[in-house]
């Protein structure tokens, strides 16, 4: 079953600025009053990289990571599920999924995984 995207963004009730991740005070107006907002729709890729020198915890040859913007303006980092030969482009529309992004003590840690739209 497809898992719900567990990203929660925070919209300032005073000025409307959208935040992700969480801040205790609005980055624009300092208000402490937020409403929770879930990402909506697909996500447009803003930038990406393919990393070959991986950090501890990743026993694989490379990782593709990018930042994408959802249709309601929330921006988030995520892994990109494409192979090395895939010709990824900035501006490409991606389908967001919630899937394991790393394993800690054999437990899956879930996060945003972006896949190119078919």
């Amino acid at each position: 079953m497809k898992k719900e995207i567990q990203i929660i963004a925070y919209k300032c009730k005073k000025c409307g600025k959208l935040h992700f991740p969480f801040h205790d005070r609005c980055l624009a107006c300092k208000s402490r009053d937020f409403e929770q907002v879930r990402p909506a729709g697909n996500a447009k890729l803003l930038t990406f990289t393919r990393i070959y020198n991986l950090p501890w915890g990743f026993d694989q040859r490379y990782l593709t990571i990018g930042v994408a913007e959802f249709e309601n303006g929330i921006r988030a980092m995520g892994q990109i599920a494409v192979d090395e030969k895939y010709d990824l482009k900035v501006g490409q529309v991606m389908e967001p999924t919630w899937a394991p992004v790393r394993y800690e003590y054999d437990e899956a840690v879930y996060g945003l995984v972006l896949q190119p739209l078919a």
Partner: protein
Amino acid sequence: MRDVAVIGVGMIQFGRRDEDSLMDMLAYASLKALDDAGLGDQSVDAVYVGNMGGGAIQHQSAIASSLVDRLSLLPAAAETVENGPASGGSAVKNGLLAVASGYYDTVLVVGGEKMRDLTGWRATDFVATMTHPTAEYIYGITLPGMAGMFTRLYMEKYGVTREMLVAVAIKNQDMGGLNPYAHVEMAITKEGIYDNPASIVNNPVVADPLHLYDACPVSDGAAALILCPLDKIKNPAKPSVVIAGFGQATDTQTLQEREDPTDLKAVTLAAQQAFERAKLKPSDIHVAELHDAFTILEIAESEHVGFFKKGEGGKAALAGKTKLGGQIPINVSGGLKARGHPVGGTGVAQVVDIVWQLRHELPKNRQVKNAQNGLTVNFGGFGNNVLAFVLRRVQQ
């Protein structure tokens, strides 16, 4: 506020120093600075140590308390300053404010790191702990990865090319080869790392579009300086150099929350503050040490501090304007790219290199002729905590 002079500097060679502990390196650099200042067996009032990973890598905390004991500087005030890769710059700032305020007259500032105790896998993770734990780190993002994403945006917006990045890499490694304190002493050629079929072997991708020779090495090393009020210096043996201005600014932790992720606001603000306090402008600077952890950062910072207009920094590097003898020589030491980047030490080492330049103490092949004013930029996180210092040679 009092004018603050740098009266002593010291550095040890950066690189892989298996024979030395973190404390050895901090002590060696400190003793060199004390000797350079002519303090001999005298003590100091306070010690600030820039270090990021003593606790995480060496399993040693309270580094400054240990250092004053080892150096017989008791009962000097002492503390460790941790601010990621800007720890060194933050230690310099703390020393500067302590002397400028009148609280202390003689301060030792030392920064250092011993990173080669870690495997590459662990070192990459150690540095990545600066990223946001749940919005970035969990994905396996690394600092080269952050720089890769930034580079892609900068290339698209400003037309920076790989050839421009290669020009920075070659310049800085050429200079590193002349610097006895540099980690990387190997000169590289354009044919070897760029326009040759073999270059993909010599210079593989580390974080697309960045390649191996776009990144600084993981280094061990330390650097130190002694600060005192300018008006306490009587009959100086060496030309006096003052920290004429400093600036520091922060930005969002995540790149994604910056309205324009190519805009390094903290660099601009820190440099503006430093210039205002020093009553100087970018065109008054004769030599600069910028935080080129990645080649793209030297180009971007050269624009953000005001040496070049946005989009012109890469062209300037390609045209040789940032070489020794050029319009504004940048990273004559080799920069982080070749001198190396022991994270807690870099911000101090940059100031040490500029002091040598302003004293006119370097050999001809590294000395900026008649340099009077210098700038350093120490870039923490991915530009979310930046310090800038303007240094000035005092006219005797």
